[in-house]
């Protein structure tokens, strides 16, 4: 934790390897990329955080429609500003890495899609999700009618208990059958 400013020491490295799905090289690379992003005045501070705006300049996240959500989900900051410490950053990369399990990937995917943080995907969340996926511009957006139809269909398929929302276990049930979720829910530095 305190090692962000300087080199990662060996003990930390092995602990990180134990705790994440990343290999040594990937952790080192992540550390390098992270240190490049740390603002100048914070470089000496232990356990510094990178504000969300800086994180979003990473090319890997720049064009992702969920980039803000991803930051917010992985951030452990007190004020919920989406800023990431190195640990959070590693958590992010670990969840999005090649070898992460379906379980952990689907867990985080659920939290990313849960825009209002209420623990279920309601109609509102799904609507936001569709807007994210279609780019959010006027020419690509769906009409309200199409949107309603789409969300109805989704709820019909995955809302097993028919309470009008998709909860985590339903979500995981759906996701676990998908052939290409694991291969596409990846971010590599």
């Amino acid at each position, binding site marked *: *934790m*305190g*090692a962000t400013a300087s080199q990662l020491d060996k003990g930390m490295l*092995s*602990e990180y390897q*134990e*705790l*994440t799905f990343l*290999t040594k*090289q990937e952790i080192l690379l992540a550390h390098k990329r992270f240190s490049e992003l740390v603002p100048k005045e914070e470089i000496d501070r*232990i*356990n510094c955080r990178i504000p969300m705006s800086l994180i979003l300049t990473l090319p*890997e996240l720049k*064009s*992702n*429609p*969920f980039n803000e959500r991803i930051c917010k989900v992985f951030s*452990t900051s*007190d004020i919920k500003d989406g800023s990431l410490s190195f*640990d*959070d950053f*590693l*958590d992010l990369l670990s969840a999005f890495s090649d070898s992460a*399990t379906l379980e*952990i990937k689907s867990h*985080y995917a659920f939290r990313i899609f849960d825009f209002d*943080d209420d*623990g*279920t995907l309601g109609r509102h969340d*799904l609507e936001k*999700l569709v807007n994210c*996926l279609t*780019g959010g511009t006027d020419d*690509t957006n*769906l009409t309200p009618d*199409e949107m309603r*139809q*789409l969300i109805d*269909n*989704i709820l019909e*398929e*995955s809302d*097993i*208990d028919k309470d009008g*929302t998709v*909860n*985590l*276990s339903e979500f*995981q049930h*759906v*996701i676990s*059958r*998908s*052939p*290409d979720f694991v*291969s*596409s829910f*990846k*971010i*590599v530095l």
Partner: protein
Amino acid sequence: MPRDSLIASDNDADITLEFEGGEEGGHKERRHREKRRDGSKDRRKRGNGRRRQGSRSVERENEEERVGEREKERKRRVKKDQEAKKRDKEEGDRAQTRSEKTAKAKKNIKNEKRRRSEKEGEAGERTEKGKKKVQSAKKEKSVNHGTKDKTHEEKKKKRKKVLETSSEQETSEEDSEDKEDSEDEEVKPESLSPEELEKLKEAVDDKKKLIQSLRGKPWPMKKKLVTLRESQEFLEKYEGALGKGKGRKLYAYKVMMMKKWMKFQRDFENFKTACIPWEMKIKEIESHFGSSVASYFIFLRWMYGINMILFGLTFGLVMVPEALMGRPYGSIPRKTVPRAEEASAMDFAVLWDFGGYAQYSVLFYGFYSNQRAIGWLKFRMPLSYFLVGVGTVAYSYMVVIRTMARNANESGVGDDNSFNFSWKMFTSWDYLIGNPETADNKFASITTSFKEAILEEQESRKDDNIHLTRFLRVLANFLVLCCLAGSGYLIYFVVRRSQKFALDGLENHTWWERNEVNMVMSLLGMFCPMLFDVISTLENYHPRVALQWQLGRIFALFLGNLYTFIIALMDEINVKRDEEKIVKFNITMWEASLYNGTVSENFTAPPITIHPADVPRGPCWETMVGQEFVRLIISDTMTTYITLLIGDFLRAVLVRFLNHCWCWDLEAGFPSYSEFDVSGNVLGLIFNQGMIWMGAFYAPCLPALNVLRLHVSMYLQCWAVMCCNVPQERVFKASGSNNFYMAMLLVILFLSTLPAIYTIVTIPPSFDCGPFSGKNRMFDVIQETLESDFPAWFSKVFSYASNPGLVLPFILLMVLAIYYLQSTSKSYKEANVELKKKLQMQNEENKKKNKKAAQKALMDLEEARKVALESAGHQRNNNASYQGQQAREMQPATRVPRTINHRSHGNPGYLPNFPLQNETMIRRAPSLQRH
């Protein structure tokens, strides 16, 4: 898991009690809960007597400090204890430290379990919190009541234990429960009892499991770090305590080795990933263009691996032995360039065509001699040649089928279409995309796919003129068929013409005439797909269907071309064999004339030495076939590279730099940048591989050439993609297509081994070149080996085994086995569907039951509240009994979170939920009664 959590809840009772007192209010938000958790931690720490201020964000320094602090704390406490209990002196220092250890161990187990159960509880609550907002507060409360009751009970038990161990110390204060607890333990004179040992062992195992599963937990890193450190510390301390005497040492040794082994494994894992070639390159592409383009490069790398192995086989077992141990160049006619060609044998043009010295080298079949054993190793060259040829094909089959099976396993679950919309919604974004253009394309494609899906769902699409579309489709197919036939005829024509040229002698013709066949094939491969693309616009198919048609047509084209080529080659082989007969006859005449003068005089006279270059020889059709394939590969490679350079690079350069001074926008308008055509490239790769498989028997150098080609392609295409391609608009999903590629590869493998096997089995080898010369058929080499190198009984057994009377029943048996396996797999599939239905039903039922239970709990709670209000006065006096009663009332309520707990954590398909619940009930009941 439920049992685990039950035990844990027994143990963590005291702590629950502690924080319950302060913060009874309903905490609905997770934030709050987290805070509370931290708060509880603090409290616990204080309770333990560790004066440590745990802020919300525990820093690393703190972590490290804590270890030291704890140490100090312990010492201090020990001192205090020593002062307090001087009577215990006679036990000696060792006993004391040991007991101290015990105490620590127990406490740590407790701490750990407490923490874990807390976490589980929290996670479980989180999943449910949205729905059961109203109930959550009450639920928690009831849980806590329940645990309070248990706490009390446990305390009692402990006290009993204390009495039993005849320690006169009485527990006077309840607030510092932990401290008292540890004191209790320290008083205890003897070391670990068997049960405790068992407990400790269990705890150690638990820790180990925890450490291993830690990375799979969706916790923030800090929490993981803390847990890891604590459990590692715990392990270090108590792993050694397990076992006694010798066993103890052994145990410690085992633990140490285990650690070393883990470390080694991790390092090895790192090393392995570092060894995967081009990993970073592919990841870079992946992050720019998404997974579909990357899937091509992964496929390319996979092909490279296979070709590496094929190359290793042919190089190590055929080419190198022949080059090192076989007769050297120039020793026998087949290893010498004939006199007529000697002058031009070193010309570049000839070498480029793989004539001259290249033709008479280890690169081709004809060079190998038919000596049974070569060199001091007595290496069986012909046998090795034959077996490597067979092994190449067998290995390829094995690898392709194994990969297919694995892919099918991975994607086998996604066979049903029941989550069409949800998948589109939840899994369609490719998180690897790091390029804004790709992202825009992806947005567009997702939008269209949504719209399409909605349209399809509505089933409202009407065909305005079905007759016209039908007509157009028929027309398009007709045109495509014409194209295919035309290209086939063109190739046949060109091959025949080239044979005529070859008979005349190549020197008299221009470069074009010499390379006509390969050029025509490559050009057809380049332009026909474009033509098909134009034709397919007539058909007005859905883009996905259109893509499949397009792929199918290109496949047919390539296959047709390849087979025409092979048929033409077969013609040529027949021509060569006729020629060979004449040459053979001539040679006997020539030999007769050569010996004519000398034979009559003296038989013992040394035979006339003729330079091997002057000996007349047959046309060796095998080498010819090998040469054709090598040339084909070379020209194919060249066209691929040149198209890449012109079609992609030059186009990109022109578009980029002429854009400033052009009438229209080149980048957005007509030429624009080229897309990376995944499917076309994959098809090209597959066909290339097919040619390798076909020709490898007659030209052992082919795998080596292919390795070279793939290596260069990798770099060239990576570069081209990164610098001058735009991502494609039509998205070909990576995982869905993997097995599609593999299936095509399998088809090609089969189709390409067919002609090779046909020639090997039916056509007798040339009489004066190659490892099988002089034999009737190539596979006779097996027979020969069996007869001369194996004992007699073996060949006898073999001949019996290869008897049709045995082989036919065996084949029959295999067919039956296949049939049986297939029908079982079908029935499994049906059972699967059945189970799926059951699962869904059960799920719904569970939900209903849970809801009912929750409602009931709510009502009970209300009642309990009333009672509580009424009896608030004399509650103090009769605390324990009241709580017990209340807990009994609360039973359903406490059950609810548990159900939720393991449903959301464990396998969602885990059905027998209720029996387990019952078990928890049963386990709990006796304790209540005892109380």
